């Protein structure tokens, strides 16, 4: 592979390698020319050890801005995204203040224009203050540039408000993204309800806390004929509900995180606060259902749910620790190591679910490898081994479940919207 990219006008770049672009049906050795950020030629080329793929899109990132810039900023979060191979990310609105007004959203959009390394979209809240009581001014938020609506971090508890939100969001072209959790079932819960919670005595968070809400929201979406997106699915029962709804023609999409695809609740026996997340890690049969749904495509997106936390917040007993782990910089390597290399998920499936799948779900431009397209490319060295360490992150936080793990597969270069944003 060769790569020379400068970001000036008239600059030209040539990249050669095994191109894997599932959405375009490409898997062959090619030579890609990029001029002024646009793919200008694709020709037969030498095969090399590197893989070139459409860059990734992460539909679920917590940038902690505004309010907790000690944990992440738009700049640090997008540097982490670039290092992870992402050409676009969507940020969650559960900040302080909540992104529930055009004023807060407008300031973020402006700041992202100035500081974001990769294109960043912002979701706005469904309810004011994410309190689940009154709808936000969705039309105003959409006009200001909202990417979608979500109360992520909290569920929309009231079925009535959820129905109104589905109906009213029709004034925009945006969809709702839902954190499905029935709080009266998850209250006091820290880990999946099952053998491990019973043995350790940790507060149980049963699968039904997610799946009854998934069932409710799919039923409402069906009756209102409105699309929705299910975030971070964790339970087999949720996948089954999604499959039934898709068979009935409900316009639903769904995402799954790397940690739910790789780990099970056995990991929490370590009582390491970096394996504590919401929804929790679940049983092997749940993980298998998620992997199967990912292969089949009923779950079409991989989302990191990158959730930075300050070190002192995680340096506490497991039970007191906040939910959430980082993931932008490790997602591809973790999934390549734990799903592709053992033959559980094909490389092209992984790339599709990290790139086109999330872009399609949110109506974003799909990263494409074709002449005339803006260059949104990731170059991957599948054989590179590396160890995840606390000082290796661009993110301001290091609460990764992979600390100390050795992974195979590394992002070498990321091109986002025609610019080289990461080169190792």
């Amino acid at each position: 592979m060769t790569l020379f990219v400068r970001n000036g006008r008239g600059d030209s770049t040539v990249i050669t390698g095994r191109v894997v672009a599932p959405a375009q049906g490409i898997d062959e050795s090619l030579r890609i020319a990029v001029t002024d950020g646009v793919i200008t030629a694709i020709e037969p080329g030498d095969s090399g050890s590197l893989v070139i793929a459409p860059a990734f899109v992460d539909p679920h990132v917590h940038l902690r801005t505004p309010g907790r810039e000690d944990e992440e900023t738009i700049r640090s979060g997008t540097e982490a995204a670039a290092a992870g191979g992402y050409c676009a990310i969507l940020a969650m609105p559960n900040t302080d203040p909540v992104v529930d007004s055009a004023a807060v959203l407008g300031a973020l959009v402006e700041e992202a224009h100035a500081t974001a390394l990769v294109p960043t979209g912002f979701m706005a809240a469904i309810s004011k203050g994410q309190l689940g009581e009154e709808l936000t001014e969705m039309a105003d938020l959409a006009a200001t540039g909202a990417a979608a609506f979500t109360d992520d971090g909290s569920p929309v508890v009231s079925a009535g408000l959820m129905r109104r939100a589905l109906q009213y969001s029709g004034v925009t072209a945006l969809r709702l993204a839902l954190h499905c959790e029935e709080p009266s079932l998850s209250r006091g819960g820290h880990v999946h309800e099952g053998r491990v919670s019973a043995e350790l005595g940790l507060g149980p968070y049963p699968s039904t806390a997610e799946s009854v809400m998934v069932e409710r929201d799919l039923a409402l979406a069906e009756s209102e004929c409105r699309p929705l997106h299910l975030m971070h699915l964790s339970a087999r029962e949720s996948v089954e509900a999604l499959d039934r709804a898709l068979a009935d023609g409900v316009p639903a999409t769904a995402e799954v995180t790397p940690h739910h695809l790789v780990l099970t609740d056995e990991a929490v026996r370590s009582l390491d606060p970096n394996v504590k997340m919401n929804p929790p890690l679940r049983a092997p049969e749940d993980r298998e259902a998620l992997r199967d749904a990912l292969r089949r495509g009923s779950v079409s997106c991989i989302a990191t749910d990158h959730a930075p936390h300050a070190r002192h917040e995680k340096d506490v007993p497991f039970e007191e620790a906040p939910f959430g782990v980082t993931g932008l910089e490790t997602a591809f390597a973790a999934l390549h190591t734990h799903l592709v290399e053992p033959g559980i998920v094909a490389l092209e499936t992984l790339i599709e679910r990290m790139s086109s799948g999330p872009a399609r779900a949110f109506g974003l431009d799909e990263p494409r490898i074709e002449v005339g397209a803006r260059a949104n490319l990731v170059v991957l060295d599948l054989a590179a081994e590396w160890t995840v360490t606390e000082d290796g992150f661009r993110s301001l936080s290091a609460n990764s479940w992979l600390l100390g793990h050795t992974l195979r597969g590394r992002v070498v270069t990321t091109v986002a919207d025609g610019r080289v944003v990461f080169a190792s």
Partner: protein
Amino acid sequence: MSELRLPPAPKRHLLSIADLDRADIERILDTAGSLAAALDREMKKLPTLRGRTVVNLFYESSTRTLASFELAAKRLSADTMSIRSAGSSVDKGESLKDTALTLAAYEPDVIVVRHPSIGAPQLVSRLTDAHVVNAGDGKHQHPTQALLDLYAMRDALGRLAGLRVAIVGDVLHSRVARSLVQALALVGGETVLVGPPTLVPRGLEALGCEVSHNIQAIVDADVVYVLRMQRERMGDAFVPSLREYTALYGITPARVRERQVVMHPGPMNRGVEIDPRVADSDAALVTDQVRAGLVVRMAVLYDVLTVAPVEASERVGVA
């Protein structure tokens, strides 16, 4: 060339019964037996841990556990001090991490930790060089309680293998029950958990015990182990009322058969989970348990300080 340095040996802790195997348990109980005999025969104080420091770090109220750890350290001639969260810098908002690092600066040999949150002793063991003994963390583990219970059972009934123990009541919220189930499985005891379905978590059968929601299941037990019914659980509607709980699961004279012994980790709610006539009967081993607590905690302090760590590779299935 620089000198090749071996990594420091792993510290022995007692964080969970899962840290032990059958031989460990038998050794600790035998040590406790020898200590009891020595205390009877000789003086009340042994020089065994002279020069060692034992710190008790207690973030939850406790009478018998704290008292017996303090006394156990003193009887072994260790220097000991107890830090309670109330009245310490914890009141001023100091984190567990900072408190642990502060205490570690005094280079204690053992830190005994009681904390309302699961994972607190694990955190202290990661942050300090001391041997850490878990004196109860949330609903997770209370390993020295399980060991003293085994000691009291063996003392009263002469054996542990094949012993049938019915654990009755609020298993869900009980670190005592979790520790005891695991410990009994290691020494070859049989366990049946008895309580309402809302208070016996599904999944514990995997540890090798039976589950019943009918009090009749205690009939063939050698030991009826009664758990404290925590009144604060009523708000969460685990049971509709204490009256109904007592009617269904209270241990009354009519429900205890001859030759059964009754145990309770304390503090008891007389008239709720245990009838006062049972609590005060000869069948009750409650004060034997308290006595066992002293010698077993002496044995645990001695054991973590003197027995070499087992190679990690020799341990299977340790959490």
